């Protein structure tokens, strides 16, 4: 239209253009796949996941609002399972009441619109206290993504991960709160050595521990035709990133991608619980 108006020399009201660096993206269709399987090892099933998707129209626009959570519990006597399960439910319920309900029920009430970063952080901090009360010996990782419009907002503790898959590349968004990750950052060990490090399972931050919990938050723009993968260490410690990418790229749907990702992890000998959630936009 810009070119047209120049050519014709006519004054026309400004029109939407097809391109633009800061262009608003809308009408995104979102599709979710999710799978969690129990490992063959001696540990009980300690992973948990949740997904919740709505889309609401505003004029011709379709606004998606989608939440995904993965958690990997730890601690004996089923403490890990209780912790991950409880944490996922508590965080889900919190986000539901503070974002989904105002989003659907009170769209014009600014008082009901708390910033996403605050809601997610408070949700995880509140869950931290309750999980600790309910299960003093347990703890859990938790990675939560809220997809809102063309952005995803992530909140995270522990070593479950979020990856962005876009333009045939895969990039890790979250930072593992693990000792080995700090050692990698400091150049003491390589990522490959970390996979074999005797203390590779030691986390310095997790949900369900006494005291204050610092939550990582992260705003991630989601380009068109991108995907967000949330997974526990059962997947990422067994399947290399390039194989994750090729598996996702080859799959016809997010659900089949998740099925195949989990298959790959088991083929590579993962005896841990494996959980994958894939959000495709």
């Amino acid at each position, binding site marked *: 239209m*810009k070119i047209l108006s120049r050519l014709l020399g006519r004054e026309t009201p400004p029109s*939407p253009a097809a391109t633009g660096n800061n262009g*608003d993206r809308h009408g995104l269709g979102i599709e979710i796949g999710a799978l969690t399987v129990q490992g063959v090892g001696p*540990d009980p099933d300690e992973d948990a996941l949740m997904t919740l998707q709505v889309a609401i129209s505003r004029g011709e626009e379709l606004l998606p609002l989608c939440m995904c959570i993965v958690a990997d519990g730890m601690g004996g006597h089923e403490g890990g399972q209780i912790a991950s399960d409880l944490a996922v439910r508590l965080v889900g319920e919190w986000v539901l009441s503070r974002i989904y309900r105002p989003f659907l029920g009170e769209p014009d009430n600014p008082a009901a619109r708390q910033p996403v*970063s605050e809601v997610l952080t408070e949700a995880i901090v509140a869950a931290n206290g309750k999980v600790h009360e309910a299960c003093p010996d347990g703890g859990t990782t938790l990675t939560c993504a809220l997809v809102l419009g063309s952005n995803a907002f992530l909140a995270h503790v522990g070593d479950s991960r979020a990856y962005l898959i876009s333009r045939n590349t895969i990039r890790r968004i979250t930072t593992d709160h693990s000792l*080995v990750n700090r050692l990698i950052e400091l150049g003491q060990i390589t990522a490959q050595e970390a996979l074999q490090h005797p*203390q590779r399972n030691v986390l310095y931050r997790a949900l369900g521990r006494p005291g204050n919990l610092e939550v990582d938050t992260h705003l991630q723009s989601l380009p068109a035709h991108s995907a967000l993968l949330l997974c526990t260490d059962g997947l990422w410690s067994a399947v290399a990133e390039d194989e994750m990418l090729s598996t996702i790229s080859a799959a016809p749907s997010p659900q089949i991608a998740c099925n195949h990702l989990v298959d790959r992890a088991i083929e590579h000998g993962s005896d841990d619980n494996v959980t994958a959630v894939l959000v495709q936009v």
Partner: protein
Amino acid sequence: MERRQKSQPPSSANRTPEDALEPGAVLQQRYQILKVRGSGGMAVVYRARDLRFEKVSRICAVKEMTVHAPETRLRDLVVHSFEREANTLASLNHPAIPHIFDYFNESNRVYLVMEFVEGQDLEQLIDDSPAPLDPGRVIDWAIQICDVLGYLHSHEPPFVFRDLKPSNIMINEQGDVRLIDFGIAKVFERGQRGTMIGTAGYPPPEQYRGFPEPRGDLYALGATMHHLLTQRDPRQEPPFSFHEHPIREVNPKVSAALDAVVMKALEYDAAKRFGSAAEMQAALDAVNHLSTSPAPISTIALSPFEAAVTYDGDVTPYWTFACEDEVRSSPTVSDGIVYVGSFDHNLYAVDATEGKFVWKYPTEDVISSSPHVWGDLVLFGSEDHVIYALFKETGGIAWSTPTKDRVRSSPRVSLEHVFVGSDDHHFYCLSARQGRQMWAFETPSFVRSSPAVSPERVYFGASDGCVYALDVQTGRERWRFTTNRTVISTPLLYEGVIYVGSMDWNLYAIDAQARWSLWSYRTQGWVVSNPALSETTGLVYVGSADGNVYAIDRETGRKAWSYETGGPVTSSPAVTNDAVYIGSTDGHLYSLDARQGELRWKFDTGASVVSSPTVWEHAVFVGSRNRNLYALPL
């Protein structure tokens, strides 16, 4: 490594084990248990009396190793380690190392009898202290620890303590240091199954590669000192994150020299630490001497550990251009010409390289709107209610369009249309070629914010506290986002997120599609400054009326740094790869390091700088209320 498996409560280190010996129990018909002194891991330490000395009450420490593990191999390892501790202690002779008296097996348990060290360990001391410990005491202890570490490291091969931490350092009533717990039982912690919670705490990074060496003990000493001086327990922090918690921010009583010694010990790279315990001891001695010296200390004398002084060097403008009244408008540069409005009613065109007058265009009132160049036109508003488009070459008028009140908003052009607000409560879309009104959108109050325009929507703030998103084509409202006060700040649109300040003190990040706040950062004053973003640093920069310049991580919404100026900051930042330039009402233009927020330089104009700087080639341009327009080196 301090870590705990998830099945153990964190306080287990101090609780009394259920199967501990009862008071009164006698071992080897000689050592009468008095009480449990402490426990941790697989060991329990008792306070006991040596009955061999009937006439005197000779007190000793009895350390008991219990192995609950059914595996023979693990049990053998524990016993072997315990024997090693006994042999180690028996071969050492230093006043800070407790004497060993006896070693024996009884009832499937292994015992070590040692000198009883009276006093408190440093962990108890710091836990009981309401404030960080006195730097003088910490230096004194650290010097003694360096002495004993020097002794241990002088063995061939060097004896590496490997587990230096506050709970392993005892202090008696005289202030003498004793190292306790030579049990080097790391072997038991390896290769455990399942994810667990733990933290590095005090040991150095290389110890987790399996390379304990003497300089690692110096790191652990640095970590211990950091804990004592800040009360920040490293076991509660991400591993190896001491450099993220500057000591002097927490405890201003710590001198720069002491801080430098501790941070040198805590270098990640062992080669950058002190070469030996003796070297660290000498550095601490020097700090001690300085801090106890009665004579006034020159900061130069603190070298080489004194932190670098801030740089506040002279900045000489390339040129200064004098207007006839205040310059509050923000300059813009195009094709080597600077355009800026002044309170003297004129819009000026000034040569950017030499500061020479090119032309000026008089309006009927003061100009606080900032000019915008589009093609061969320069567009701006005036308090005479009119929006002007001038030919940028000549200053001749292309068109002018009146509104019904002052125009303080600065126009933006997109898709051949001008978007601009007015104090007449309207936001206008005009054709850029002729100034004809395409649509107008009415708000309940002034529109002084300037717009951000995407191919589909235009975003601006208004004095009713709302950020509006309108359809560019029709001017129809798509959404509004309500803040609690007036929005004068100009929204910044980047990757589907609107960043905008409000006079409710917040900087907001709003999803441009779902109009939901992704994060907000609260300053302590109005935010009328326009945010600027650097793709290089990923930071959003903005000024606040609380006097600070803020850098907020755009992904987390958390503050990366802030820099305090001497007055409210209503100017908006200009960003290059390295630096942020911003004015303050304290009269200065500041150049700050974009990543760290350190001062690069500041330039005093003598009157408040509310104009926002702009960068072109090798210069930064800014106006001042002292009537001048400046060109300064970057």
